[in-house]
């Protein structure tokens, strides 16, 4: 999901209502209540707004938080993250499959049994053949994660080499008579279910063309269909006429009859429009200038929730001056993380951090090496120590450019870093690049970016999604725009330990998380990045929005809120 997403929550007034409906969602005993709620609140048109659309609506191609949130109510995979509040949203539940299968063959084989009677929005039945075709399609359309999430399926290597003839033979096997699909993996994978629970593994009709569908809708199985989509105007979602609720946890019936997602309104105007009740929600974080007003005058319409994410400054470990460990440590010591928290909107909206894994995340153990009194939490910057380290490194006076995104917050963070670097004795400047380009620009070693401002939002709740993705040797490809290890840091020893942790996770997740906690610390000792803060998400909704549920995985569960 895209990094362009930012903050969210402290539960407030609507919490009570949320709790109630959530309990209702949870299961059978309260089915009656849920039915009553559905009867009472169903209907109406919900209006959402975002500054810009997020590109294609092909669920196997789009890789943004903005639309992954929409795909929750339009598409299904074999399994899915639960549509539930907070950390319950991290739970994986069976969706099109009847149950979560037990691993066979030492974790290399999984057999899914397909639910019966589920139809696509075009009226056709979901069959095992559709599942196989969907997984083939991931490779045929060069899906963004085809080489990183699904390369472990038997036959994936051939598909990656030659997409057009992709069959995944021996990897994904359908049995029409039994209604089952069998997956064969090359290696046991503790994150297999996470990977097939994200929208890229959505099940689509087998006849879907093997090319990015762009702005046209592919029939899905969700509670809603996308009736129209124009990235410069709006997206209209209507109820899926062929939808019959089969799992409240995975794909619940929604409340609004229609959901309109408008694009192009700036944040300031969107805030005004929500205040005036013209729209119901905005995707983008509210501008810093308006936060105080929202927090005081509209407190009961604001929801602040934690995000599994962090803002950080990757330092290019292959370029002066950051090829020197002392300099990287100095930067970590010098940054006043409270100041950055203030830039982001104050202590309620962000939390200082000096480690990579976010709080309450698998593998997270409080630790801070770079603070006045190193221990479990950050307290204050240690400028003396930082200056001393810079002096020892003998790099003072060198030219350093901070590359930030051209958004208000990123620019402010970049400007602050530039100020800190100047104070450390460097000749520092800052450069703000269009958000769309900055992310690939800072990855490519050819651009010789020394230090940048970036964010990382998890795809699924596993420590490897931070540490292994951001800092493994495999994630570093010199000269490529796709080299997510922006620091260019490759440590063979730590790489090996990460592989061990992932191996351990297949059988013993607890032990693995302990290993990840140690790895987190080990990486921070080498300081290839300077973690800055953990952001929170702010959702500002209109007065009429009821039953606000925030899942830590995909954020606000849109269709579980009502507008009447």
């Amino acid at each position, binding site marked *: 999901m895209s990094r362009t997403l930012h903050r969210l929550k402290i539960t407030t007034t609507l919490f009570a209502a949320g709790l109630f409906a959530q309990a209702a969602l949870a299961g059978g005993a309260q089915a009656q209540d849920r039915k009553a709620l559905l009867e009472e609140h169903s209907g109406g048109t919900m209006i959402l707004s975002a500054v810009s659309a997020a590109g294609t609506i092909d669920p196997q191609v789009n890789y943004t938080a903005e639309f992954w949130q929409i795909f929750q109510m339009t598409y299904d995979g074999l399994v899915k993250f639960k549509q539930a509040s907070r950390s319950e949203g991290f739970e994986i539940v069976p969706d099109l499959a009847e149950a979560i299968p037990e691993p066979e063959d030492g974790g290399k084989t999984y057999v899914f049994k397909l639910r019966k009677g589920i139809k696509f929005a075009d009226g056709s039945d979901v069959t095992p053949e559709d599942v196989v075709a969907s997984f083939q399609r991931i490779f045929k359309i060069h899906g963004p994660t085809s080489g990183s999430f699904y390369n472990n399926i038997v036959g994936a290597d051939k598909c990656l080499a030659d997409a057009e003839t992709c069959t995944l033979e021996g990897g994904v096997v359908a049995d029409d008579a039994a209604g089952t699909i069998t997956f064969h993996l090359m290696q046991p994978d503790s994150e297999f279910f996470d990977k097939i629970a994200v929208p890229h593994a959505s099940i689509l009709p087998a006849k879907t063309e093997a090319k990015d569908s762009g702005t046209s809708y592919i029939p899905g199985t969700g509670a809603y269909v996308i009736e129209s989509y124009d990235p410069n105007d709006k997206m209209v979602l209507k109820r899926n006429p062929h939808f019959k609720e089969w799992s409240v946890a995975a794909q619940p019936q929604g409340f609004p009859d229609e959901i309109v997602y408008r694009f192009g309104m700036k944040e300031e105007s969107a805030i005004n429009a929500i205040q005036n009740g013209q729209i119901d929600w905005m995707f983008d974080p509210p501008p810093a*200038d308006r936060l105080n007003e929202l927090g005081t005058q509209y407190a009961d319409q604001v929801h602040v929730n934690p995000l599994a994410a962090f803002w950080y400054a990757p330092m290019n470990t292959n370029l002066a001056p950051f090829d020197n460990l002392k300099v990287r440590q100095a930067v970590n010591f010098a940054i006043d993380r409270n100041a*950055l928290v*203030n830039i982001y*909107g104050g202590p309620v909206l962000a939390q200082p951090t000096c480690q990579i894994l976010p709080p309450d995340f698998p593998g997270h153990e409080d630790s801070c090496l770079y603070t006045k009194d190193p221990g479990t939490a950050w307290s204050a910057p240690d400028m003396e120590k930082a200056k001393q380290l810079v002096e020892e490194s003998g790099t003072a006076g060198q030219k350093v450019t901070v590359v930030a995104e051209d958004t208000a917050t990123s620019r402010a963070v970049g*400007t602050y870093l530039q*100020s800190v670097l*100047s104070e450390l004795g460097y000749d520092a400047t800052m450069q703000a690049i269009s958000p769309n380009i900055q992310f690939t620009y800072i990855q490519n070693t050819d651009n010789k970016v020394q230090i940048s401002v970036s964010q990382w939002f998890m795809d699924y709740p596993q420590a490897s999604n931070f540490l292994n993705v951001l800092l493994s040797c495999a994630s570093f490809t010199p000269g490529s725009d796709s080299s997510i290890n922006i620091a260019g840091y490759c440590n063979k020893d730590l790489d090996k330990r990460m592989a061990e942790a992932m191996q351990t996770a297949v059988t013993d997740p607890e032990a693995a998380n302990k290993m990840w906690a140690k790895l987190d610390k080990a990486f921070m000792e080498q300081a290839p990045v300077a973690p800055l803060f953990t952001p929170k998400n702010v959702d500002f909704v209109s007065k009429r929005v009821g039953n606000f549920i925030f899942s830590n995985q995909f954020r606000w569960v849109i269709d579980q809120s009502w507008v009447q």
Partner: protein
Amino acid sequence: MSDAAAPRQMTETGGDAAAIPARPSQSPWRRAWRILRRDKAAIGAFVVLVLIVAACLAAPIYANDLARTDPFRSTLSGSIVIDGQTRKIMEASTTGLGLGTTPIGPTWHWQYMLGADNQGRDVAARLLYGGRNSLLIATAATLICLVLAAAIGTIAGFFGGWVDMVLSRILEVLWAFPVYLLAISLSIVLLTTEFWIGPFRIGSGSLILPIVIIGIIYVPYIARPVRGRVLSLRHSEFVLAAKGLGIPRWRILLKDILPNVTTTLIVYIPIMMALNIVTESALSFLSIGVQPPDASWGTIIQDGQGLLYTRPMVALAPGIAIVLTVLALNVLGDSVRDAVDPRTKLR
């Protein structure tokens, strides 16, 4: 400003074939100077400009001795004492949910006179430093633009033939490219590239970039009237006569054509500067002009845009500075034109 009209305004009222004096001499300059000295509006505008420039030049004195602040350093924590009261520079909200932080507002004391921006920097001090950059960029870009335009226009007009053909087509291509779009595309390339001109490294933070970009984009608007003027001069009686007398071409160019072109160009200077200040601020507003930590009036407006609701002064102050400067330049421009080229007297 979303316009390409301002320079064209000058081409409309500025010289065309009919207005060419028979032969340049010293007297028009002296006469112009005499007229200018008596022009109250011109003197007023000039005084305003001098005051603005002086204030901007005094920026370090203001920052160091009066405001006692470093306008290029983020001061996100810390506080100042005003009238015996301690006030935080960045105030975190304490009411309601406690969302957001607000920088200190105008204090009307030396420290943080106009308040702070979202980095806790003194806006008044930044305004003065920013003015330096805005004025520097506008002046340098004007010079580049006029020199380039004069060269291209004169060469095209004087030599004619295929030289004219090629130059005119290039100008036409540039002309048909809306100014801001041209500036944006140039900036996007140049901002991410680093290149060397001789020993000078021109990288992202360099002020040379906005200067060059702004200098280039208006060249067609000046070069075309210059070419037109040279073209008509070439066919004028005295040049034809000079040719007839066998005077070499370069001599005609130097003695007859260039002085005439210079008159045209001088008229353009104040108006071009006004236009360039506005252009610079627009580019910086779109964050493709001056880059941090440097400031310019445009970047301060951009900073202020994010604080428009709570601290409108951050955007107001540089805007007023721009309006004042540009207004003074325009008034001066009118007077200069009236003085130099009496035919188009406006007053």
